[in-house]
């Protein structure tokens, strides 16, 4: 298959076609009990869920969450797992409340601890970090969520040296996981307004924000809006990181 799927026109991307399936199929729909709700920002909450049928998952994978109305109508959305795999029967999903968001506004406005929701997963075999290679993590806004699972995994394994997280956010009020990011030594970039006394002026990600040297074996994980993803990818390319080492997950404007 090698030659036929090879990139042409000199474009060499990270897409690699491997032999066979890379991850097991996701499990069936299962019940998930809300055991904790934490506020991250004015518009964001983390929901800790206890799964009836827990499964091993990889940092970066997501679950689908489904709501069912009495008339049988359903609404589903995908949410990245924010917690690191720890062998427990619980996962955390961080959800931004979108103004017209049918699922996110219900989760924010109606759901309380003790409620049962329906989820399915884990899903995805591409935007995942297995903890066995250096990773440069670039997250914009809510795009930090799957990268947080990766950073937490690195620390859980005692390999903080493997994962370097750079988070781009508008202002201090918009930052998810603020205290923990500081504790885990993530780099925080404010694009519009910084906290008082912050050394780096507000502004978008540039090559100056990247580590001085990015090893050949490092994989870059980029997650955020389409605009952030394009800008971060361009920054990585101009810093000499090849396409084939960049994996992207875009959060479209889904409601």
């Amino acid at each position, binding site marked *: *298959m090698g030659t*036929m*799927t090879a*990139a*042409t*026109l000199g*474009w*060499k*991307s*990270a*897409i*690699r*076609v*491997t032999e*066979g*399936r*890379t*991850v*097991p*199929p*996701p499990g069936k*729909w299962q019940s998930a009990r809300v055991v904790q709700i934490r506020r991250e920002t004015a518009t964001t909450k983390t929901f800790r869920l206890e799964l009836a049928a827990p499964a091993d998952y990889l940092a970066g994978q997501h679950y689908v969450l*489904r*709501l*069912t*109305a*009495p*008339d049988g*109508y*359903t*609404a*589903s*959305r*995908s949410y990245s797992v924010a917690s690191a795999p720890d062998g427990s029967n619980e996962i955390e999903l961080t959800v931004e409340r979108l103004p017209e968001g*049918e699922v996110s506004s*219900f989760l924010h406005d*109606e759901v309380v601890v003790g*409620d*049962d*929701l*329906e989820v399915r997963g884990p*899903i*995805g*075999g*591409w*935007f995942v970090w297995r903890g066995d290679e250096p990773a440069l993590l670039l997250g914009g806004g809510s795009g930090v969520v799957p990268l947080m699972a990766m950073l937490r995994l690195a620390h859980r394994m005692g390999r903080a040296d493997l994962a370097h997280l750079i988070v781009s956010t508008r202002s201090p009020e918009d930052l998810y996981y603020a205290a923990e990011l500081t504790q885990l030594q993530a780099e925080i970039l404010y694009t519009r307004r910084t906290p008082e006394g912050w050394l780096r002026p507000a502004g978008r990600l540039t090559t100056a924000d990247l580590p001085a040297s990015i090893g050949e074996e490092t994989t870059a994980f980029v997650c955020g809006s*389409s605009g952030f993803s*394009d800008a971060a*990818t361009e920054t990585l*390319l101009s810093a000499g990181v090849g*396409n084939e080492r*960049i*994996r*992207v*997950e*875009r959060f*479209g*404007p*889904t*409601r």
Partner: protein
Amino acid sequence: MKPTRGFHSRGTRDPRLPPGQYDVGRDWPVLTAEATPTLSTATWTFSIGGLVEQPMKWTWDEIRALPDSTYAGDIHCVTTWSKLGVSFRGVSVDTVLAAARPLASASHVLATSHTGYTTNLPLADVTAGKAWVVWEFEGEPLAREHGGPARLLVPHLYFWKSAKWVSGLQVMDHDEPGFWEQNGYHDRGDPWLEERYQGD
């Protein structure tokens, strides 16, 4: 399934929406796994190979000289958004396959992209007026982030089957999982049957 406490449906549902999908309206989310490539139409090609009598390769000018064909209807992404009432223009996959003449043993195709992306489809899902190679969306050139200069369009299946930056079709006598299919997604992907993931 058991209703979720406190959740109610919002009025009537558009019958064009498959189960589990919602209407994204004017938005068109971009969901790709890699950097967006810049492909020049000066060097762009589209090829058909594998189990065919006549392997074919078209340049940008050559494929655009073929009889054009439009699709007007809906598209459905596995991430649960659908975009209703859209139009694309390009060439029918029937037209390009007719030039290459698949062998009698042909049963599937693997669509390939200039980036290395792949996706697998039964031959029956890209023939009989069901699939296109398109370069226009709503009368405008297809944007780079949506697969421009040209992408595959297979609108009756989930949209990851509609390979962006398409480079060709490999005609095969068996099914072979493509990129997302190796990463947990369904081999066929019919939105009306909710064939989202492996095992559905």
